[in-house]
């Protein structure tokens, strides 16, 4: 007799755009969703972009209604500051152990007034803002964060380092700060798991020729996103470290591609998007794009490219680019299409690093019982059958955790994984 349980609850790991889409769809069909998110907020990488290609839509406006819906959805149990530590069982009956770190702020009492930030005496670099601005030990990563509830960084909070400081608690009128909160171990029973943990970017330490971290005004793509963002560290002003406005900017594509061995598929498009960013803030700026192959597939992408080109961007096919300081400016040495070595000088450089798996991807793969491919991304079982189905029945992979892709493809995969889950009956194996 088969009394195998068939649990209809679903675990979604990662509350970026793919995780949010999957959760909302599952909730709409009456499923209960446990959405586990490592950071203190939802939105993943998408909320770091001010605008997205190719219609330059406001990214946060696009996602905020979904985040709000998620937070108010009774079927979705959002667990922030939480990570999956153990998974046992099989499709239809998984037992999951989750470590949930304490936030030290009560999510029901807190009304998001931010009064607790000002009195905090600790200043730290804000990772969300790519280190370009500071935050306190009690903080929300960005303005407009959802949920709009701060967390305490216990590694740096004076109270948690044994000092006598209760400044935030004293400033809070809603008794929302609770130093006594404890980390939790949560056990869940779910029928299926969707992995939407997203991506990281190539560590530029491994490509010293681009001068990142050594030469001022060499920025990564994410740093430029935050500089341009209206809710970012400079409220959208694009300035050099000296405070001056850059007159010329070089965008270097394919950074790290030699080492990773694949094309990250979105960088050419977002580099063109950066043209729009820069021109809208600095209309006279001179932009040059250093690229190897222009990868812009998609029915509306070439038109976008042509529109950007009309604004005067120089497209330079380049190999072996090297970035060095030259007086007040930055020099880019490279070999052009014919092999001739040449050099250009600019005020600012933006690097587009490869999209790589998250550093803990292989650990998570082991926990889930799925495999990773040669590059460390989660691997599908058979790409000719489905891109979201793994070798472990009931565990589905979506978005950039599966491989570099744009938002549209990530959302398609999220929807596909939901389709797979809803079509399965009685834990039928895929």
């Amino acid at each position: 007799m088969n009394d195998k349980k068939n649990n209809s609850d679903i675990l979604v790991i990662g509350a970026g755009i793919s995780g949010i889409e999957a959760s909302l769809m599952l909730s709409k069909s009456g499923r209960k969703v446990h959405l586990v998110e490592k950071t203190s907020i939802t939105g993943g990488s998408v909320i770091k972009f001010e605008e997205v290609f190719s219609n330059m839509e406001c990214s946060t406006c696009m996602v905020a209604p979904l985040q709000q819906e998620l937070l108010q959805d009774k079927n979705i149990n959002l667990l922030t500051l939480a990570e999956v530590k153990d998974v046992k069982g099989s499709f239809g009956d998984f037992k999951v152990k989750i470590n949930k770190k304490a936030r030290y702020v009560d999510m029901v009492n807190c009304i998001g007034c931010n009064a607790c930030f000002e009195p905090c005496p600790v200043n730290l670099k804000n990772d969300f803002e790519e280190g370009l601005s500071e935050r306190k030990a009690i903080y929300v990563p960005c303005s407009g964060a959802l949920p709009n509830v701060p967390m305490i960084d216990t590694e740096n909070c004076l109270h948690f380092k044994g000092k006598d400081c209760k400044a935030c608690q004293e400033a809070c009128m809603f008794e929302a700060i609770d130093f006594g909160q404890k980390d939790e171990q949560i056990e869940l029973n779910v029928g299926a798991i969707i992995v939407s943990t997203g991506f990281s970017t190539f560590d530029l330490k491994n490509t010293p020729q681009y001068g990142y971290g050594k030469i001022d005004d060499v920025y990564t793509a994410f740093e430029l996103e935050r500089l341009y963002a209206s809710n970012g560290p400079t409220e959208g002003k694009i300035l050099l470290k000296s405070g001056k406005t850059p007159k010329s900017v070089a965008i270097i594509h394919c950074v790290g591609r030699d080492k990773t061995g694949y094309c990250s598929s979105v960088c050419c498009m977002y580099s063109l998007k950066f043209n729009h960013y820069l021109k809208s803030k600095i209309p006279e700026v001179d932009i040059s794009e250093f690229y190897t192959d222009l990868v812009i597939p998609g029915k509306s992408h070439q038109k976008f490219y042509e529109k950007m080109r009309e604004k005067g961007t120089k497209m330079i096919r380049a190999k072996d680019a090297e970035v060095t300081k030259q007086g007040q400016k930055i020099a880019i040495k490279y070999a052009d299409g014919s092999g001739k070595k040449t050099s250009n000088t600019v005020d600012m450089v933006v690097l587009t690093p490869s999209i790589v798996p998250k550093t803990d991807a292989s650990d998570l793969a082991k926990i889930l019982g799925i495999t990773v491919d040669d590059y460390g991304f989660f691997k599908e079982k058979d790409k000719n059958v489905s891109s979201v189905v793994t070798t472990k029945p009931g565990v589905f992979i979506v978005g950039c955790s599966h491989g570099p892709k744009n938002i549209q493809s990530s959302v398609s995969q999220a929807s596909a994984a939901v389709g797979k889950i809803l079509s399965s009956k009685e834990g039928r194996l895929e």
Partner: protein
Amino acid sequence: MTEKFEPRIVGFLCNWCSYAGADLAGTSKLKVSSSLTPIRVMCSSRVDPVLVLTAFLRGADGVLIAGCHPGDCHYDEGNYYARRRFAVLKKVVEGLGLEADRLRLSWVSASEGQRFADVVNEFNEKIKKMGPNPMNKKSSL
């Protein structure tokens, strides 16, 4: 006796973008002129020209219509219609004997709290310079 002129500005804000941007200005504790009273609509395309004209006829010193940036409308094309109506309305407002600049159309996205504040504050200053709605002196409807 002259009282200090406190403009009364009506703001039609669309739910998805500009109303959210206005909220963000508040959450960010920015200083925004209180002369603007917000009226939430689902889309800037809901803003009936008759509503705008009624506002002026009832004595509004300024009317602001704020919607999503072109291309971002939650209902696809609503803000394009708002833009077209605005173009015609400006002429009608002039025909009523009011300065066309008393009517303003702005695109404010949900993440543009500062922009919302700037738009409202700048509009408020402009209206202050223009003075009260001349119809305020006439008999009210």
